[in-house]
């Protein structure tokens, strides 16, 4: 599958690879390929084949073709839950981009300009990332509880009774709260990546702009931000994928039904319910659903990646 012929590179850096033998290519690529193929791809393909059968418990009973796909897409209430969950995933993605990644950028810029105590802050901001999403969800659901939660307690003590809401129980606030808690946990990621990217930008560039009389703000937007675009691209794609794999946290905050009135229902939960709380044919149906989710996420990620890379080149 992998041809031995090594062509001279036409890379931007003008790097010319020497002739690299097939042996070396195999030595370098095969371990990862075997590992990944065996334990990630084969199960996925197997799941695809599972989706083509009607199951009785853990026994494939008969070949069903696309029957499971049809079942999943047409059966009430799944046929209404799938678009709703997809929409929640998209909202979650938009919210995370808007909050987690901009705050992450803000913190990175602040730290870059005020390096005193930088390491301490970096460690502290990244701390929540170390904790299992299940524990994070548990801690926050206690904090946000309307009866015993310190947050509403503090709000009431401060005389802000109207602000004390049943955060995770109100269909209007559940999803925004989910986005915030998730951002709280993961903010260290974008911050570190932005910080590293900022460090990689030659200081002279901005100074040149400043000398031309550009304001600090303009200097940032016109000089530094474009150079951050590769980092923005990486973060966007990673955020997108992370958002569509969302499961543990929302499960811990809202249970497998997706919170009040399904306000936090996302594709990951839908898959979980079909696979682990489903009926006799749950293996067939959940595999079909998983393949559909995979196709959507995969397609959009590839498109997103290409789009961002094109923009990057243009800028």
């Amino acid at each position, binding site marked *: *599958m992998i041809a031995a012929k090594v062509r001279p590179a036409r890379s931007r850096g003008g790097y010319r690879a020497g002739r690299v033998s097939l042996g070396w290519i195999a030595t370098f690529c095969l371990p990862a390929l075997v590992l990944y*193929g*065996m334990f990630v*791809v*084969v*199960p*996925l*393909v*197997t799941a695809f*084949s599972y989706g083509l059968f009607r199951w*009785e*418990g*853990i*026994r*494939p009973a008969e070949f069903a073709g696309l029957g499971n796909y049809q079942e999943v897409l047409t*059966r*009430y*209430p*799944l046929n209404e839950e799938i678009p709703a969950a997809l929409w929640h995933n998209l909202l979650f993605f938009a919210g995370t981009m808007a909050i987690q990644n901009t705050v992450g950028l803000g913190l990175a810029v602040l730290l870059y300009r005020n390096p005193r105590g930088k390491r301490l802050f970096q460690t502290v901001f990244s701390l929540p990332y170390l904790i299992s999403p299940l524990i994070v969800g548990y801690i926050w*659901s206690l904090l*946000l*509880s*309307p*009866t*015993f939660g310190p947050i*509403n307690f503090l709000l009431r003590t401060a005389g802000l009774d109207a602000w*004390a*809401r*049943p*955060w*995770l*129980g*109100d*269909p209007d606030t559940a999803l925004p709260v989910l986005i915030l808690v998730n951002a709280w946990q993961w903010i260290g990621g974008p911050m570190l990546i932005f910080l590293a990217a900022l460090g990689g930008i030659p200081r002279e560039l901005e100074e040149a702009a400043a000398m031309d009389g550009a304001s600090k703000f303009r200097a940032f937007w016109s000089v530094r931000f474009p150079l951050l675009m590769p980092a923005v691209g990486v973060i966007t794609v990673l955020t997108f994928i992370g958002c569509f794999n969302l499961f543990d946290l929302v499960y811990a905050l*809202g*249970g*497998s*039904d997706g*919170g*009040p*009135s*399904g306000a936090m229902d996302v594709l990951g939960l839908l898959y979980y*319910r079909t*696979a*682990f*709380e*489903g*009926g*006799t*044919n*749950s293996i067939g*149906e959940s595999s079909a659903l998983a393949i559909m989710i995979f196709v959507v996420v995969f397609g959009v990620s*590839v498109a997103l990646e*290409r789009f961002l890379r094109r923009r990057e080149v243009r800028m």
Partner: protein
Amino acid sequence: MSRTRRGLFAAIGALAMTLSACAPSAPEDQAGPGAASGPITLDVWGWRQEDAAAYQKIFKIYEDAHPGVKVKYVPYKADEYDTILRTGLSDANGPDVAQLRSYGLLQPLVAAKSLVPLDDQVKELSGFPEPVLDGARGESDKRVYGVPFAIQSLHVIYNKKLFAKHGVNPPKTWDEMTAAFDKLAAADLTPLATTITDTWMLPIQQEIFGATSYGGYDYLEKMRTGAAKFTDRPWVESLTKWKSTSKYWPRQFEGVSYVDAQALFTSEQAAMFPGGIWELAVFGKSNPDLELGIFNVPPPEGAATAKTLVPGYVDGSFGVAAKSPHQSQAMDLVRWMASPEFGQAFSTELRQISAVPGVTPQDPLLAQALAAYQADPSPYVTYAYFSGGTPTAWDLASEALSTFVTGRSGAEDAAKHIQQGVDQWFKPTQ
């Protein structure tokens, strides 16, 4: 792009060749380690992590009477237990005896032929009442696959000291009940510690407050023959009546979880907790000073029955794994689980109602609950009876009632959600 993708599929295809090795297949039967000599260990899987110590104590009785057999209770996290059990039963290293969920949740295991039917192996089962055995029956072949272990009845559990302090008695009529609620609310207590965010508790509370509105078993019979529906007046009314008590629920009840509700009750900030009889053990453990009482909700005006119904259902059963290398020993153990000796120990150690006929709980509250349930039983309709297909009424009800109590839909819409889902597979009996 298209080239890349085609190539990708080709690559995946190549890997698919190795797939045959991983299709589910029967593992080679390992020679049972206990076949030769030495004590054998029977693994009993279950989902009650909090009961592990008590089960060990109960099984000690069996071990003492059966030298050479050790019984080990292996509990898993309740949420993932069903999946773990499904996979575990396909493997000789899995359980020998397994705690099984009841009704619809049991069916995938039956369909997979992972369990041994017990009707002709365990004679003791003939003494169990039919409705109790329903909880352990295969939908397709009507055979019994487990020995039911517990009956859960549903009540309003109340704090006796708080009731006495505020001059309130267990109510005999609906109006008496709301008057009592008002009195407690005026004393700055939360009358009812209701669970809202854990949606599995919603259908339970709907049965507690709504059973009399639709009429229990009589209505269920009509539903099973197709003469009545969830969307008909009496059942919709059961939702409305239940929600009419919402002014007695905790402040901002939309955000109150199961654990919150339990804590409200055990810390004596709430006077009552609507829930299952299994809570007695939980409450007793977290606040031993509580004095507990139970009552059931009297019929409101316009109810379908004048009786004060007590909803209840079979919690689960113990079955024998078809792949177990120690099947005859496992069968002996399960037979013992159908005996009064086990039933009595179970009831005493776990403070629950044993499903074994003739076992009277020592605990007076449990005895009261059992007597009340036997006098005026009512089914847990969505969990026990419309659960043989997908989607189950229980899943539908959990979703619909969450939408209903958070004010996002009316009672009719909630009922319609359940009916529409069930209609896709439910066939009325003629």
